[in-house]
């Protein structure tokens, strides 16, 4: 948004190898981009391009990488207090009610119960789950559980919200509506956000900028500015400009996705070779 401000999060020449010697594969290859305060940036790429590896590096769950991920002046080498992660998998604690799930990060910090419930309630309302505070995750739908996870991360008031395909397991309609919710929240909190996704519409619907990655090894292909007006809603999906952006990014992505698909087919063919 305020494009002139100092970036919060800098990804500087990040490289991640798995294995060593000649067997080593490069998952992320010299990626560089940044995220400025209040900005919503998406990283998009085909399955297997190293997006999730990047997510884990930025989240501090993969310490061993080359290059630098910086928050302010600090190089990330473990989970950083100013980064809040939302995972792709269903990650609510089934033994905790919604309110106790959301209050979890505050509980870790030793915030007294009354206060942490107060703050948790605020974020439960924000993600649209008022009235479900006492429910258990098993009583909620997939989309509701994912909103609980988002509220749980927001309650820790991270400077940067880092999400890895949080809606991947949901149907398209739920996904669009949750996108609206995310847009609303982002506006309300002026929340700096980095979203990892493989979903084109989702990326264009939500982002100020989109970082397109190549298929294996994951390199930076290009960065697209999305100049759609804000505040946005999911209705933006019907506009000409939206279609134009989707087409533009798809033409970049298509080549990468098809080489990914071919790769997967070769692997499958090799695996299914008759044994004897």
């Amino acid at each position, binding site marked *: 948004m305020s494009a002139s401000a100092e970036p919060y999060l800098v990804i500087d020449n990040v490289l991640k190898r798995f294995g060593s010697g000649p067997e080593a594969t490069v998952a992320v290859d010299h990626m560089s981009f940044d995220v400025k305060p209040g900005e919503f940036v998406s990283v998009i790429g085909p399955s297997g391009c190293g997006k999730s590896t990047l997510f884990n590096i930025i*989240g*501090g*769950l993969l310490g061993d990488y080359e290059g630098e991920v910086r928050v302010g002046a600090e190089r990330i080498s473990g*989970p950083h*207090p100013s980064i*809040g*992660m939302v*995972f792709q*998998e*269903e*990650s609510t*604690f*089934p*033994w*905790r009610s919604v309110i106790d799930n959301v209050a*979890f*990060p505050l*509980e*870790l910090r030793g915030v007294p119960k009354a206060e942490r419930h107060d703050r948790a309630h605020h974020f439960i309302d924000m993600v649209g789950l008022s009235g479900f505070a006492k429910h*258990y995750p*098993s009583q909620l739908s997939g989309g509701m559980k994912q909103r609980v996870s988002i509220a749980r991360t927001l309650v*820790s008031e991270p400077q940067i919200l880092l999400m890895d395909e949080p809606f991947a397991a949901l149907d398209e309609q739920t996904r669009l509506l949750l996108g609206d919710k995310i847009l609303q929240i982002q506006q309300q909190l002026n929340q700096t956000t980095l979203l990892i996704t493989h979903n084109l519409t989702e990326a264009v619907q939500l982002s100020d900028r989109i970082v397109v990655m190549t298929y294996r090894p994951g390199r930076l292909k290009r960065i697209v500015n999305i100049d759609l007006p804000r505040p946005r809603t999911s209705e933006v999906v019907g506009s000409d400009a939206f279609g134009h952006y989707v087409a533009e990014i798809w033409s970049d992505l298509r080549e990468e996705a098809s080489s990914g698909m071919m790769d997967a087919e070769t692997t499958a063919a090799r695996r299914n070779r008759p044994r004897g």
Partner: protein
Amino acid sequence: MAATGTVTARKAAWLDLDAVAAPSRAAVAGVRVAVACGIIGIWEALSASGLFFGDVVPSLAKIIPAMLGLLGQDVFWTNLQATAWETVAALAIGAVAGVACGITLGANEFLRKAYEPFLYYFSPTPRIILFPIMIMWFGIGIESKIALGALASFFPIALSTAAGMRGIERVLIRVGRSFRASGWQMATKIYLPAMRVPVLTGVRLGFGGGLITVLLAETKLSNKGLGYLVMQYYQRFDMATLYGLLIILFVLAGVSNALIGRWERAGR
């Protein structure tokens, strides 16, 4: 014989895994009562038939008063106390050792591969065959029963804990790490609650195994406990009291099992 237009899928009437309606509670309760009445009826018929020698199958009219009489005697309560203490001590030792062992095996792939086969192969061995050794080590008092019971409850608890440890959703651990939970917080707020159900399932099975083994050991060589008491009434050929005692044992085992089961399911 003649085809009548509509075709209905046929299936056996009792085979209803995809049944739409839940079975009515009243019907289920009715069947249970009917089964109980049926068993009592057959029992009374056998008792009255004179097919069995003497008091081998005493009538309920004798068993019930004998049972109530037993509940009024100190000998029942002191022996119940002995068995209860043995079982609780056995379960406590077996649970602590089993959970510790299960966590270790669950957390480390190498240790699991190396040691879990031993657990699996030794687990179905009847513990009672080790009783002579336990008597030599711990004497004929309650210690040898506790040792044997602990051994019996250890295995299901260890195996179930190891499986529970491996069954923890990895993403929940990553959530804990991302919120920078300390080691202690990870253990108490993520690992333990995530493993609560499998561990309690193990405890329930371990309780059953421990109780069986303790009672069995008491019938063999001992001077107190309900198993010992069973053998006393058997040797005196006091069948009515013996059956009364067995009924009390059934009820006690059932109630304790149900209590642990409820604890297992609570909070879900």
